[in-house]
């Protein structure tokens, strides 16, 4: 009951943020909040395979980037009035681009997952990294879509009845999608499917003995996770109005992982907390000194070595509640 009230209060504050930002004159607050929500979604998607499923993917930025590039490429073709692969016209309608981004990143996740899940452990970490790097270099070499420089999306995707070019409106769109996403994820983790995924993490052989085809379940979880990251990437391009190969760089995968671990592996709220902590810390430290990575590195070390379970464990300990 307590947590519901907490969630409701948080939601009200988040919804009122554009007004708060305007009143206090902190216009950067809005873009920071949008980025936190979006990265939170990407990190939560990663957390679904990593925390619940025990599959340590070091290549999730690939799906994030693919989702972003779907928006970018569709914009590019709409802008130049050309056809993608000779038959797909471009579009700037968000109702089309977001589902397209989800589907395409899901398809990539299906291919990458099907191959990668044949391995495990360290090899799984490295092979997912390998696939992400391949996609990174592929997009770097695609001169049509800006190569290294990426695509500048001059106009944010449109929604019927809403003016998405207004930053506040775009923020509310992101917030609404995040809430829906979080609710969906919560349902998913509590469903029988989510339970099986957790069971596979704990003991794959036992699950197999129960007659559960582990590989198929893991693959399906991987695809869902890729779709979530793709959705986040598509929104990110809409907010930043820019898609570039940097979205799939391996350091981005690392950042997503840091958010998950910082927030708390295998928890629903953890990745969002982690994203908020990391991004706020980054912007605060960066405003103090250009040498902020030094402090960031030390903080990461202290967090990893000194705590177990990330910020979520801290929150649970402070509120004295059970998980």
């Amino acid at each position, binding site marked *: 009951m307590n947590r519901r009230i907490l969630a409701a209060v948080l939601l009200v504050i988040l919804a009122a943020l554009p007004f708060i930002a305007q009143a206090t004159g902190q216009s950067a607050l809005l873009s920071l909040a949008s980025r936190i929500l979006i990265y939170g979604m990407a990190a939560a998607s990663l957390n679904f395979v990593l925390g619940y499923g025990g599959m*340590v993917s070091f290549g999730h930025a690939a799906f994030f980037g693919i989702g972003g590039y779907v928006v970018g490429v569709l914009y590019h073709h709409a802008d130049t009035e050309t056809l993608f692969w000779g038959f797909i016209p471009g579009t700037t309608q968000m109702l089309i681009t977001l589902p397209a981004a989800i589907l395409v990143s899901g398809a990539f996740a299906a291919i990458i997952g099907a191959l990668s899940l044949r*391995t495990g*452990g360290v090899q799984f*970490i490295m092979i997912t990294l390998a696939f992400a790097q391949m996609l990174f270099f592929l997009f770097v*070499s695609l001169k049509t879509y800006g190569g290294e420089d990426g695509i500048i999306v001059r106009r944010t995707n449109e929604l019927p009845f809403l003016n998405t070019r207004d930053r506040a409106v775009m923020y509310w769109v992101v917030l609404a999608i995040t809430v829906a996403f979080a609710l969906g994820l919560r349902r998913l983790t509590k469903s029988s499917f989510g339970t099986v995924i957790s069971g596979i993490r704990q003991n794959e052989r036992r699950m197999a003995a129960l007659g559960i085809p582990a590989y198929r379940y893991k693959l399906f979880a991987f695809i869902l996770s890729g779709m979530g990251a793709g959705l986040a990437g598509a929104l990110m391009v809409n907010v930043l109005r820019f898609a570039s190969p940097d979205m799939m760089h391996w350091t981005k995968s690392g950042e997503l992982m840091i958010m998950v671990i910082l927030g708390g592996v295998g928890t629903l709220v953890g990745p969002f907390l982690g994203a908020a902590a990391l991004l706020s810390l980054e912007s605060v430290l960066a405003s103090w000194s250009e040498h902020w*990575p030094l402090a960031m*590195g030390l903080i*990461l*070390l202290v967090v990893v070595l000194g705590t177990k379970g990330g910020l979520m464990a801290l929150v649970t300990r402070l509120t004295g509640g059970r998980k």
Partner: protein
Amino acid sequence: MILFLEQLLNGLQYGVMLFLLAAGLTLIFGIMGVINLAHGSLYMIGAYAGTLAAMQTGSFWLGVPVALIAAALTGLVVEAVVIRRLYARDHLDQVLATFGLILFFNQSIILLFGRQPMFTQLPELFSGAVEVIPGLPYPSYRLFIIAVGLLVALGLYLIINRTRIGMLVRAGSTNREMVRALGVDIRLLYTLVFGLGALLAGLAGFLAGPVLAVQVGMGEQILLSTFVVVVIGGVGSIKGAFVAGISLGVIDTMLRAFLPGLLRQVMNGPEADALGVGISSMGIYLLMALVLLVRPKGLFAAGS
């Protein structure tokens, strides 16, 4: 033909560098079970320390011991302060902690020496070129790197296969718990292995100085390729690191040298170049994916 041979030697030189880094990494990985992303930082520290010493004293050869000692010392401190606490943790914590180390080291170097890249003077002995075959003069310094790499490989082979420490290392990469259960001071072994890995990384970094620029981020550039070498070769296997390192070095260099030219025959210039560079950068990752699909543990995995 001459161009081909020249690129082959370039590939060999790159492969040897990869081997020097991968040898340490694969041991740390295989014996201690730690994913050490900060291995590239040790490479960078070796390069900076050695290059600074060489610049101050004006002697390339004085840079060598300084690079080795600096990298090994940093390695030992890192092992004692950070890595030692990570043995029992899962890979996630190790990745995060060593990622923090990368940030820390990179920024410290920027604070101390700035972002400007540094270049080492070639040693006088190896500043010229040698005619490998008639019509192909080749920088003798690169031949020197190849020779050093091969010597280190031979030395490691002898240590691993002919000494008591080597026996423990081999045993450790096959079955860690059993070695511990037999009463071996595993902690000392870990420290030794980590120090050795750091030493080799420092050597590689210093040797790379005159060929590449000594700059912040040089470690991360080569780190991923090194991990690919480790995984393809099989975690914990020096032999695997050697075979995979040399092959990847040669394949990567060959792709970069010849693929754009081949593509240019079917496409127009700039696009072929861009695509060629892209595909050749993908090459080693593609190879790793293929190897892992056929042999999920790598080519020469220990204990499989």
